[in-house]
């Protein structure tokens, strides 16, 4: 990475840390939302960019965590404890990811895309059609989880600025975790699977196990994002599990450039800011969004951040015997 590219993440971090100092509540909340989606996008990048698994059902893990928070509150108006509800939500997402992954990873390529979509629809229907989480209306979160440890309450998630910093900390930790993963043996094995899975198997790697592990980790991380998203929205509804959500997060990954983890963060920023701009501009903003997506795919295959190297190497495939 060149000097400028290396400095970018640090620059971004500095700006994000300083933001509440000079911005008003609107921007603090907006950027908290963007950072949560950035974690969601990074979790999908682990699958798409690192491992080469295109999943169209990632919102299932995002939404399930939110629903788990709602379902784990003692009653509607009592707050859950952060220290129990967060691990529970992440555990639920991870288990779902293991279950779906175990079956979906028996398929490859296009089948895999379609199967992940169908399974997330299954989860969507469970919450939409049954009374489990309030059906199609969803449920409100009247009281944000309390971060109480005995007599001491270190963080008040109800305070916008504190919530912002908690989310920022999670973003930083998640990013660092993924960078470490990318550089580890496990991460290199995932790259090998993305590059040439048959070769990996012929070398002695149990690629199914690696992919399942990546799927579970990605699901867990999406669960973390979903938990905090639910807190910020103040409610959960089946739309959090919809395939539109899955398609949107996939778009964030490609917008920013897949495979670097940082690209996903850039993509999340770009997508949400664009979405807000378009919907303010016109009632028919879907047209603008759709047109933008089509143009992005046709004109910017490498995404905004530089994953261009990867695509360029694929394109230089000489006809080989």
């Amino acid at each position, binding site marked *: 990475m060149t000097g400028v590219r290396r400095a970018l993440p640090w620059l971004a971090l500095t700006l994000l840390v300083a933001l509440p100092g000079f911005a008003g509540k609107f921007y603090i909340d907006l950027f908290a939302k963007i950072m949560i989606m950035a974690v969601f996008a990074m979790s999908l990048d682990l699958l798409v960019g690192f491992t080469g698994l295109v999943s169209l059902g990632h919102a299932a893990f995002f939404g399930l965590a939110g629903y788990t928070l709602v379902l784990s509150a003692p009653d509607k108006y009592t707050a859950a404890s952060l220290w129990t509800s967060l691990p529970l939500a992440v555990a639920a997402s991870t288990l779902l990811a293991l279950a779906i992954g175990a079956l979906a990873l*028996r398929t490859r390529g296009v*089948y895999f895309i379609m199967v992940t979509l169908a399974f997330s629809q*299954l989860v969507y229907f469970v919450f939409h*059609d049954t009374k489990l989480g309030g059906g199609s209306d969803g449920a409100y979160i009247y009281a944000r989880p309390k971060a109480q440890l005995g007599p001491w309450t270190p963080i008040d998630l109800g305070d916008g600025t504190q919530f912002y910093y908690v989310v920022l900390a999670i973003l930083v930790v998640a990013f660092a975790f993924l960078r470490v993963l990318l550089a580890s043996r496990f991460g290199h094995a995932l790259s090998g699977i993305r590059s040439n899975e048959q070769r990996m198997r012929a070398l002695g790697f149990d690629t199914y196990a690696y992919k399942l592990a990546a799927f579970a980790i990605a699901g867990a991380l999406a669960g973390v994002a979903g938990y905090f998203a639910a807190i910020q929205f103040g409610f959960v509804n089946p739309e959090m599990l919809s395939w539109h959500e899955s*398609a949107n997060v996939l778009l964030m990954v490609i917008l920013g450039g897949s495979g670097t983890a940082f690209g996903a963060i850039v993509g999340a920023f770009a997508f949400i800011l664009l979405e807000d701009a378009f919907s303010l501009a016109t009632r028919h903003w879907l047209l603008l969004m759709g047109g933008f*997506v089509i143009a992005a*795919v*046709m004109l910017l295959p490498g995404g905004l951040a530089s994953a261009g190297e990867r695509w360029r190497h694929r394109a230089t495939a000489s006809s080989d015997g």
Partner: protein
Amino acid sequence: MDLSIFLIQVLNSVQYGLTLFLVASGLTLIFGIMGVINLAHGSFYMLGAYAAYTLTSLTGNLFLAIAPGVALAIVFGYVLEWIFVSFLYERSHLQQVLLTYGLILVFEDLRSLAVGDDVHGVAVPAALSASIPLGSTMTYPVYNLCISAACLVVAALLFVLLRHTRLGMMIRAGASNREMVRSLGIDVGMLFRIVFALGVALAAFAGMVAAPASSVYPGMGNQVLILCFVVVVIGGIGSVTGALVAALLIGFVDTFGKVFLPDYSGALVYLLMAVVLVWRPAGLFRETTA
């Protein structure tokens, strides 16, 4: 369950299955031959239904709407392939998924601009608005039988096309080996355009013909799309026979599921898919891939 109710459910299952088959056959052909995963396929069904509504309002009769509707669909498919879809050949699945998702958004809003977001009904043509008696107390709408009949006819025509014509032979060859088709000197670009237009026409026709029986509403394309994916996964990519079997299977599971387990009927189809996946990860009728 008494016999006439059972018979009604069987007829409903067949109708549902055959309609789904028409839409899914297009999807499986487009993927099998052109290697493109097309998320916008459900939109063609939706556009067909809305076209039926619009054209029927204009001409006064659904019959008069079908021919122009299908013709429009073919032209639309041809142009769409030429401008956007051809870009997607040899591209990564990720790009295909996203570009066709963009198309869904565009189609949604274009439809919204053209005819609005209201839910509509399409009148059953007067000639077919009778009901036939089933047993001593139940009746069944003649039009629903006609839907099944129409789908069967089109399905039969499709099979004849695929198995007994030169075009069909090229399509089947292309489904298993694109390179070979190219090296035989066949204009692959034209073949793809025809296949894509065919797929669009099949989906639009299904939407038009089924419109009087179900309502015409904005989200109908998305629901059909996902079911089509399940059909293709169960039936095997590129296999039209597989799509038929899978679509009928889904028709029965869904219809009888709604009767016996109404709360979980939405989930049953996906459970079926999970079961098939455990048993045959490449679908029931996988085409031998080159």
